[in-house]
């Protein structure tokens, strides 16, 4: 585990911690009846209030818990945003063929629940060329022997990592926030599962653990990030993090590497030489549901 992370100085932490300990009794008994996550998790502070030491202990706790749940050694980090980097994503709609390779690469990389409940952070919509980008004629559940189907085009949707994220605004407990590199993250140990953010998200990008995730131990991705792909408990919300565990380490997201047609572009918006900047400078890009002024970091474009 590594706890290299930059955080703002925290204020009334000690008083808060004291009160929390004092109030823990009630919470512990409540926890007991809802699939107890252990006293440590109940008493834990908000992620952003953890001292470096507490964070290290928390990472160790997660690794321990992973071993209990999956019988496997994992490596959990909390690597922070890189100064001077802001992530951006480009999606070339003239290339996407709707093969859903990205969907399953994402599931695998990010330890999503496989079935019942099934969680897909990427949702590929099949749309009609006749209607253009029109959700009234969009089909998420298309089945075909071969894609692209005649007269159709494909519109993958995932978290747009908005600059003005409505989900963050509505969260009653600050369990979700925007990091400095632009990634919107969730503290799975702080989320109360009220699902306000799911109502507020215009992109259907937030997903709820309606039950404990079904995740075969053999398929667990052991390289994990605290705010990303570590296995989630039941009853909390999760979402795409641009593969925070990969991208903060300099790698492309899993969906970019899985895409067989090269429709997915990723990079640093502040680097003039990056692929995403080339896309923005040489292509006509658009953002999804622009009228809602969420200012996404995910740009759709038509290369041809």
């Amino acid at each position, binding site marked *: 585990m590594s706890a290299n992370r930059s955080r703002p100085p925290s204020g009334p932490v000690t008083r808060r911690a004291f009160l929390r300990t004092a109030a823990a009794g009630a919470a512990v008994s409540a926890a007991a009846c809802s699939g107890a996550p252990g006293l440590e998790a109940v008493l834990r502070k908000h992620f952003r209030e953890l001292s470096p030491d507490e964070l290290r202990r928390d990472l160790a706790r997660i690794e321990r818990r992973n071993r209990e749940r999956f019988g496997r050694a994992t490596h959990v980090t909390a690597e922070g945003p890189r100064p001077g980097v802001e992530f951006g994503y480009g999606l070339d709609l003239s290339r996407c063929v709707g093969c859903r390779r990205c969907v399953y690469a994402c599931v695998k990389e990010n330890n999503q629940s496989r079935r*019942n409940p099934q969680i897909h952070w990427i949702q590929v919509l099949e749309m009609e060329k006749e209607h253009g980008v029109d959700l009234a004629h969009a089909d998420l559940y298309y089945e075909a022997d071969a894609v692209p189907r005649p007269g159709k085009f494909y519109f993958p949707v995932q978290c747009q990592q908005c600059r003005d994220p409505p989900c963050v605004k509505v969260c009653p407990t600050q369990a979700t926030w925007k990091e400095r590199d632009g990634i919107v993250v969730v503290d799975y140990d702080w989320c109360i599962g009220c699902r306000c953010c799911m109502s507020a998200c215009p992109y259907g990008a937030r997903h709820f653990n309606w039950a404990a995730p079904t995740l075969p131990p053999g398929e667990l991705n052991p390289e994990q990030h605290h705010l990303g792909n570590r296995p989630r408990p039941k009853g909390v919300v999760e979402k795409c993090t641009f593969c925070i565990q990969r991208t903060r380490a300099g*790698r492309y997201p899993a969906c970019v590497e899985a895409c*067989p047609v090269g429709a997915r572009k990723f990079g640093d918006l502040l680097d003039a030489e990056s692929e995403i900047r*080339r896309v923005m400078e040489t292509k006509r890009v658009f953002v999804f549901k622009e009228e809602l002024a969420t200012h996404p970091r995910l740009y759709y474009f038509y290369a041809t």
Partner: protein
Amino acid sequence: MRPRSIRRSIPAVLLGLVAVTAHAGAPASARPASTAPSPIGLVEAEAPPFSEGIFPCSACHASLEKNGARRELAFHDEQQSVFSHDAEHRWCLDCHDLQDRDVLRLASGATVPFTESYRLCGQCHGDKSRDWRAGVHGKRVGRWDGAKTYFLCVNCHDPHSPRFKGVREIVSNGKRTVAPTRGYLKPEPRPVRPEEQRR
């Protein structure tokens, strides 16, 4: 006209031979800086292999008469049957060199080795070529902040039938890479509908 272009192409042919040898032997890691993507840390993906037994072309062609007249071929049926690259206007010798079958030939008459086929493609598909060099067209894997592997035109497009259909993962020259498929891709299973998730 003809003699001059032949004379000019001799050094290129020699170069090309060297390159082809390199291609057949060790992986082509050295690239001409002038034509391919320039930033440091870019690694070329392994190109798909030639059809078995077909290369070097000169193995057969050396003993054949050189005929530059456009015509229906009585052989190379495997290419003829799929050929669909502006077939009305194009034929073999628009891209393959009459004098040296082991290299490709640009419109200028200059020849390029098979390992640099993107230069040939870029003559007509200039916009794609520019996008590809910038990383906008085509695919790259690796690090967004450093070393990455970029795929070549021929990793995804069959030059004789270039319309993109799909790719499959292969191992070529001991390296994992991709090659174009003849058929379209079958999509992965659809998501489970909400009403199908019960407990």
